């Protein structure tokens, strides 16, 4: 299992479009991907699940992956969040 803590800086938080970008990236990896906020774990490959976390600007998240290429997934997804979803 690999995980990394990230801070959400984008003013609008993670609304529909950023959530979609996150999920789309997560789907590219074979491992299981989770996004955790306040101890609530969301399936990183499900849009509804990610939206359900209601991630606001300033939220601290943990990106966690388990399985094949978990390091790659965490590095890519964490940087996506840190760079305000601007790739």
């Amino acid at each position: 299992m690999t995980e990394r803590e990230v801070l959400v800086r984008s003013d609008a938080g993670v609304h529909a479009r950023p959530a979609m970008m996150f999920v789309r990236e997560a789907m590219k990896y074979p491992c299981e991907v989770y996004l955790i906020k306040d101890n609530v774990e969301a399936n990183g490959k499900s849009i509804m699940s990610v939206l359900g976390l209601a991630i606001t600007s300033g939220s601290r998240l943990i990106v966690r992956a388990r399985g094949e290429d978990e390091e790659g997934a965490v590095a890519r997804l964490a940087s996506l969040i840190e760079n305000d979803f601007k790739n």
Partner: protein
Amino acid sequence: MQAKKIYVRDLGLADGKIDLQMELVAGKEGLGKEITVGDVNRPGLGLAGFFDFFAYDRIQIFGLGETAFMRRLTAGQKEEVFEKFFSFDVLCCVFTHNEHPDEMFVGFANRYRVPTFVTRHRTTRFISLMTHVVEEFFSPTIVMHGTLVDIYGIGMLLLGKSGVGKSETALELIERGHRLVADDMVEVKKIDESLLMGSGSEIIRHHMEIRGLGIINARDVFGIRSIRNRKRIEMVALLEEWKEDGEYDRLGIDEKRYTILDLEVPFITVPVRPGRNIPVIIETAALNQRLKKMGVFSARELDNRIQNWMRTEGERSND
């Protein structure tokens, strides 16, 4: 497990299930205080001047006795006792029987930011209702990745990997007149150590993501009859890709169990492959579960019938 916090303001909301009938009369600024102990305290002794062991961090309930007692105090005595009472970090106060606190109490409560409510309920009734509400908040909770549908009154939790078709199955079940509780993210609560209650996260409630369509709101698309907010989980169905060498249950004589928060629920594994009508299988599983609850166990009954027939075969062949 989820560490959920409950604040004084949550008492008034309480999931819409139980209405505590509380009206805030003072101390609005203290509504953000966290409730850490689910217990209540009757502050009678405190009002009489005895503050040893004063459980200030609990919800203070002022019943008919407390209000009658306060009415008998002179203004001076009241000021003294309120001064003492509010010098503790009192969590919040509730006056029952629709008895309103007097101006001096309201003044103190506002100054010390102690939320003060008036409820129409009787004291004992209020305490039992409130304990129920608070206990629900404190009960063990877990968020599961699955879809919860009410099928003929059986709460069926569909599990399985992303893309195996949970949402699509739920969609077909809704079309067949069943009700969606939550898609993708199910909050499961253990209540009274005996039952598992499932509900959806509030903000995404009744929304579904269907690949190729995007996000839909089941409530808007299918109407109010197609949804419900919570449902007891009575069965778990795991959808998984059909494996040629997978050993699937062919008899259903032994009941398998799935453990959630230390409670066991009947469990089936449903192999998915093109051409299998999964919603019908899930629907039938729910009906079969209802039958079992009513004491009819098809697989065992067939087995008994066959065994009986074999036992008596010898007699028949003698005829």
